[in-house]
């Protein structure tokens, strides 16, 4: 039952970001569940070759040519020999690609299908359909996803987007959200409780925290890269009005980007330097320390697939004010958030409402941490991902995995279990478009020929099998052991 999984993406540590930590957390939790996980990414500066991270997570930093923002140059086939070598020596069953902009991931999925492996793809971002760049991206995504066994999206909005972009069967797309490591994001005055307590019980023994008085300063935290699509323009327009209408309010802004200059100009024009603190960019591990300095987290983003940062903020016990865009409305319950339209006026109103709510002590922000901890955990994400793996490998029967919805209107007997026969694959690719379909088919045929050539030139027998990391016993087994011992 334990699988050998290869996570493939252009984005991994030492670069930091949402996708990177997602891959890392998911991999380590899967390892905890007894699987073997390796990560294949391209070489970063000063980081080439094979490395191990905590828990025996093995990283292959394949030396490759990087073009833009740590994305490799899309050379459809040049990655194949080394990828095949890695896959064979690690005895991989499932290739799991991440991020649609990563050319590494797309190529790996193509090669993995040629080699007869099951593939999963996780989409982390939203794309529109309007401009030329996204048309190209969507074609590439279609190429990647035409033959994938299952796709995972981080929110329902993201799922709709991916289904539309790649013309996928909706039942082949699962929604598995991101999660946070709640321990890394606890409020300032937090002491963990013992497990036997029910999280929310009317007789909460904890003393309620010191209430916020009407004249206490309320600090609003903004942590975001200062880009247009993060809504920095909204922020710039809203800050002076929020500060003007709400006395005893301060801002802490962390992050850097091209819009930082505009923000600073606004501060100077309105002479707000004493009320707005700009921290510049902060490292991910410092985010919590910045967050706990505030009471409200303001997130003015214009597009967001999931918005991990607002979950982190809520976990730190901050009340969240965010725009109602993308997948954000799905992420947090109503009592933790105030939603605003992406309009200056509405953002000001929503923030003022949030400040008023905090001042009247209606919001129990001290409970947020425990609640978020119950909602999102990487262990849960890993379990759900594992179910996807079981489904595509066939350990769960297709009818159970894809479900049967007789009253839902569409048939379930579609071609969901993707066969590896070349002709079937070509059929799938051919439907991608008038010209693109033929081009894709050509790519697949060439890929197959390269595969045959590689099998002859570098026979499998000559490739050493890598030894896997000495495994701990899976957690549940440990638990049964301890129970047995205690008996």
């Amino acid at each position: 039952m334990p699988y050998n999984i290869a996570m493939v993406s252009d984005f991994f540590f030492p670069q930091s970001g949402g996708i990177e930590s997602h891959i890392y957390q998911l991999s380590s939790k899967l390892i905890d569940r007894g699987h073997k996980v390796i990560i294949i990414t391209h070489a970063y500066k000063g980081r080439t070759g094979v490395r191990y991270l905590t828990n025996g997570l093995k990283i292959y930093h394949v030396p490759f040519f990087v073009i833009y923002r740590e994305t490799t140059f899309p050379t459809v086939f040049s990655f194949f020999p080394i990828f095949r070598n890695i896959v064979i020596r690690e005895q991989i069953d499932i290739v799991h690609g991440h991020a649609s902009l990563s050319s590494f991931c797309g190529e790996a999925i193509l090669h993995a299908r040629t080699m007869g492996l099951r593939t999963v793809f996780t989409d982390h971002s939203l794309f529109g359909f309007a401009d030329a760049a996204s048309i190209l991206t969507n074609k590439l995504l279609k190429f990647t996803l035409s033959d994938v066994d299952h796709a995972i999206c981080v929110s329902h909005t993201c799922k709709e987007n991916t289904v539309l972009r790649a013309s996928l069967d909706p039942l082949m797309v699962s929604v598995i959200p991101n999660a946070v490591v709640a321990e890394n994001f606890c409020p300032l005055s937090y002491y963990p409780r013992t497990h036997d307590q029910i999280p929310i019980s009317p007789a909460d023994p904890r003393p309620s925290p010191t209430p916020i008085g009407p004249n206490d300063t309320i600090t609003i935290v903004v942590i975001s890269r200062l880009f247009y699509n993060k809504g920095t323009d909204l922020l710039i327009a809203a800050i002076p009005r929020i500060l003007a209408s709400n006395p005893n309010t301060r801002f802490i802004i962390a992050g850097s980007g091209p819009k930082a200059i505009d923000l600073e100009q606004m501060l100077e024009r309105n002479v707000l330097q004493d009320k707005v603190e700009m921290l510049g960019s902060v490292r991910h591990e410092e985010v919590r320390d910045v967050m706990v300095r505030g009471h409200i987290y303001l997130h003015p983003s214009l597009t967001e697939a999931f918005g991990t940062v607002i979950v982190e903020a809520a976990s730190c016990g901050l009340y969240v004010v965010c725009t109602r865009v993308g997948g954000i409305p799905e992420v947090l319950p109503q009592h933790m958030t105030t939603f605003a339209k992406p309009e200056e006026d509405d953002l000001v109103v929503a923030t003022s409402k949030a400040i008023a709510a905090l001042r009247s002590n209606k919001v129990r922000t001290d409970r947020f941490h425990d609640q978020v901890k119950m909602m999102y955990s990487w262990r849960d994400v890993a379990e759900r991902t594992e179910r996807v793996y079981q489904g595509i490998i066939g350990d769960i029967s297709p009818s159970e995995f894809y479900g049967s919805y007789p009253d839902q209107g569409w048939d379930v007997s579609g071609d969901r279990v993707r066969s590896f026969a070349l002709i079937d694959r070509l059929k799938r690719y051919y439907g991608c478009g008038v010209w693109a379909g033929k081009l894709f088919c050509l790519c697949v045929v060439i890929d197959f020929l390269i595969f045959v050539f590689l099998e002859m030139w570098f026979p499998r027998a000559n490739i050493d099998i890598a030894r896997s990391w000495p495994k701990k016993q899976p957690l549940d087994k440990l638990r049964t052991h301890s129970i047995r011992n205690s008996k």
Partner: protein
Amino acid sequence: MTPPPSSLSQIPPPIPVDTHPNRSPNSRTPDERVPDPDRLAPEDAYFAPSLSRGRSALTNYDDTLRSLNGDASLHPPRGVLGADPNRKDVRKLGAGAGRRRRKGAWKKLLWVKQSYPDNYTDTETFLDHLQRNPRVRPYDFWPLVSDSTVIVQHVCSVVIFVCCFVDIVQDRVSPVSVVCWGSVGTAVGWILWDNWIWKEQTELSNANGNIGGDDGSSSSSVTSGVNPPANDTQGNGIKGSPIHGLGLTMAANSSKEHLPHQSPDHNNSVSGVIDPTARAGLNPAPSSAVAGDMDVQDIDRPSLFSSRNRQRLSTVKSAFLIYFSLLGLSPILKSLTKSTASDSIWAMSCWLIIMNIFSFDYGSGEGAGATKFPASLSTNAAVMASTVLASRLPSTTHVFSLMLFSMEVFGLFPIFRRQLRQKSWTGHVCLTLALVVIAGGAVGMTMSGGWASAIIGSFLGGILTALAMGGCSWWLISLQKYKNVVIGPWDPARPIIRRHWN
């Protein structure tokens, strides 16, 4: 897994702008009317199935939302397109009873642990915020044809210019007669223009006097009514001062396009103030040209009539200036590209004229300035083309005439055409017809000479133009059914910001 190609054709042609009310770009759920799906107790996160089963409001939510959405917006996932009507029936029957019976209703939330598998796809809420072609305006045939007259006019004037050049080169037409006819036409056009401006300014001053005491509510309509005259005075200013070359003309032109953008701002910020000078003061001053024009207006306003004469005088003055400077420059222009081979000259002028046609600002100057290229690009290309062509002419007089004629055709004639189109539609149509006939005749004349061929040419030109206009319009309309703009919550929202702090 791709949609069968035939499913495309089953998608109905563009849906007019009847999108559902709850997704103007931002608002996903109208909180006032529908029970919010997010309004769950936090306990739902851990005890989801047991607790939410009792909440009937929640299960109704989807239905309510659906009724709000209207069916046009909901498109089923691919592969089911053909079965759409059946599916709807199934849904209506099964939605209320069947689903609730089975498990707790599925919610489009991530923080609730639900008893549905991760790849569960809810037929009701899936893609319900999808909009297809929300902002598409279906075209009608006749408006399209009438709009295409603008292009026809410009192409015809270019054709006339080229024919004149060819005839001059081939010695069929005397250059002096060409430039004389052109100048006469320009003078007539200017007189007409001046007349319109005068009328409008008197109207404006009357309106000023009438509405002065009005309240703020009507200000918006008034401002928009006032805008064109403001533009025209600007245009007049241009006409009055072409000494600085055509670059200035263009700057003023583009500033013309700026003005309408700002008018909503004035409606909000300045209530009841109609004095254009006040507006000019509030402007963030897109270019110095605007400010300068406004200043002129400011000075002019008290004595309208004398200023009119002054403007006329300055126009005449600058016309003479440009005349003489061209006269002085023409020997230089004649020898400027003399050393270049004729082949290069023909190729270059062809490209330049094509550039002129494609980058010409066909907009009416009202509304959003939709042209990507600055209008100056078009005019500069045309002037450069004529400069380049001028070197192939035998004498200085020829060069002078051609340059003057090209300025009249490419610099001044478009301004007149635009104004005419705004003033009188009949005039516009007549001008179009005249241009088409003249252009056709000129082509016929150039091809074989003689009046008979000119008549045949104009006849053929007219027919061909009519066919092209109709055919292109029909083609554009028939292409509309391929239009498939998909908009949904994944698109980056457009932030609405008013720059108070500016």
